[in-house]
């Protein structure tokens, strides 16, 4: 590599042996849906909590022909998304996109795109805390035992506490799910609004936790059930108004504070979905009139 003017990286930053190690963990994770596979996570050139797990999984599954989309809280233009997209443009030279339908790999933080995913796509989640039982049972040896024996009564204690304190299940994100009728899994901090999208999804879903050194997966077309009580069934959030920019209903909305006088708007958290709809001529109540849109 001498003589090259710039630092060059192996394709997608990680060396081939590391990628092989991660791929083995991914294969095992796919073979045992919802099971947390330990892997030797590497130091990445970004701080923990910024998606080091997701980046390593993406690097391991990325090929030169892939088209990568990175979203952070649904948006393609937020810091984390821009940084990771730039990282793979620089280290792998792959094509990137913001259009959900054109991407073959989507790395995400905190959301699943509104557009339904397809069989040829992989969704990679960035996971801060992979263990759903962590805040109830601090001992790792014990949580492993609980998973091994499928003793998940404790998870319902958490939901019980929610109802006892708030009158309903107040967990709104990282809502625990049961995968393929066996392992209880933390779906990463996505809103529970997105939980139903994981069920029977045609795309492969991979979860990477860098600091905790765990990889887990949901293979395509796997049953994913959100835990609940018979008399308090699982429900997703509902929004009173449609998106203020594209008038979409049945999507997850972000609240944007406009001023200090109580002004606010609710807009799609999925920017690609919102832009696509606006381009198709849908106009919400606060959108610029057609023709003036930037």
């Amino acid at each position, binding site marked *: 590599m001498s003589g090259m003017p710039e630092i060059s990286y192996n394709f997608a930053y990680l060396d081939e042996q590391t990628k092989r190690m991660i791929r083995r963990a991914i294969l095992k994770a796919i073979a045992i849906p919802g099971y947390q596979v330990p892997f030797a996570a590497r130091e990445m050139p970004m701080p923990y909590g910024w998606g080091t797990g997701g980046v390593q999984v993406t690097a391991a599954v990325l090929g030169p022909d892939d088209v990568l989309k990175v979203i952070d809280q649904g948006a393609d233009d937020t810091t984390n998304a821009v940084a990771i997209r730039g990282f793979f443009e620089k280290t792998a030279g792959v094509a990137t996109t913001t259009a959900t339908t054109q991407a073959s790999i989507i790395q995400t933080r905190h959301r699943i795109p509104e557009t339904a995913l397809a069989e040829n796509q992989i969704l990679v989640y960035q996971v801060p805390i992979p263990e759903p039982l962590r805040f*109830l049972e601090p001992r790792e040896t014990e949580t492993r*035992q609980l998973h091994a*024996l499928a*003793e998940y*009564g*404790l998870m*319902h*204690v958490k939901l*019980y*506490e929610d*109802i*006892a*304190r708030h009158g309903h299940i107040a967990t709104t994100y990282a809502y625990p799910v049961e995968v393929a009728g066996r392992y209880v899994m933390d779906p990463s901090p996505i809103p529970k609004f997105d939980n139903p999208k994981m069920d029977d999804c045609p795309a492969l879903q991979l979860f990477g936790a860098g600091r905790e050194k765990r990889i887990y997966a949901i293979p395509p077309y796997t049953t994913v059930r959100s835990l609940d*009580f*018979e*008399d*308090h069934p699982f429900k997703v959030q509902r929004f009173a108004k449609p998106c203020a920019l594209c008038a979409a209903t049945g999507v997850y909305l972000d609240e944007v504070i406009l001023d200090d006088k109580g002004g606010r708007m609710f807009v799609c958290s999925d920017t690609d979905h919102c832009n696509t709809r606006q381009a198709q001529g849908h106009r919400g109540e606060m959108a610029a009139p057609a023709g003036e849109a930037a």
Partner: protein
Amino acid sequence: MNATLPSDDAPLLVAEGLGKNYGTRIGCRDVSLEVFPGEVLAVVGESGSGKSTLLGLLSTELAASAGRVSYRMRDGALRDLAGLGPAERRLLMRTDWGFVRQNPADGLRMAVSAGGNVGERLMAVGWRHYGNIREEATDWLGRVEIAADRIDDDPRAFSGGMRQRLQIARNLVTKPRLVFMDEPTGGLDVSVQARLLDLIRSLVSEMGLAVVIVTHDLAVARLLSHRMVVMRHGRVIETGLTDQVLDDPREPYTQLLVSSVLAA
């Protein structure tokens, strides 16, 4: 109290030649005993005599260095507990057994409400109806004399006596057949202790529980137990009916133990 013993005379729990070594030191050795259904067995002795080690061995929390413990399952078969798989053993511990610890913080989830604490075992055995779990928890809080409006308070807001009663409710909610108690009244003041003993005694007779209770307090043993074993230096030195051992101790050490109590 023998009149309350059920007619079933097959033992529920059998220990044969139990021993436990901590390195070269001896926790307990060569302990053999039987616990019958509906019977309260007290294990007494001074600090360091191996009482808690014995309780740990009987409840399979500790692995024995020698000997074995067998338990009569609900189907009537006597099974060696060391031969149970971890899944079976854990199921046994959260359905058929209870363990009331001296320090309630060890036996309770301190950050979970009283109702959640009582409901945990129910959820662990598959209850998935919030209303039913809550109803059962409320009922049990009533039985251990905790006001129903405290159901959503967590145990940190409870007094020592209440915590201990909550721990008992949490253990009895799945209607176990055998309960281990490690100094359940230790650290409580005398009047609270008396009420707790009264409560334990009525629950035990009402539910026909078998109990192995470890205590250094001979008054507790006299009040609760049918039979007792006296331990010293890791060995059982005397066994017998509670009245017999306390009123007519045979071994010099037991005589010393009994005579050193102020009005047992």
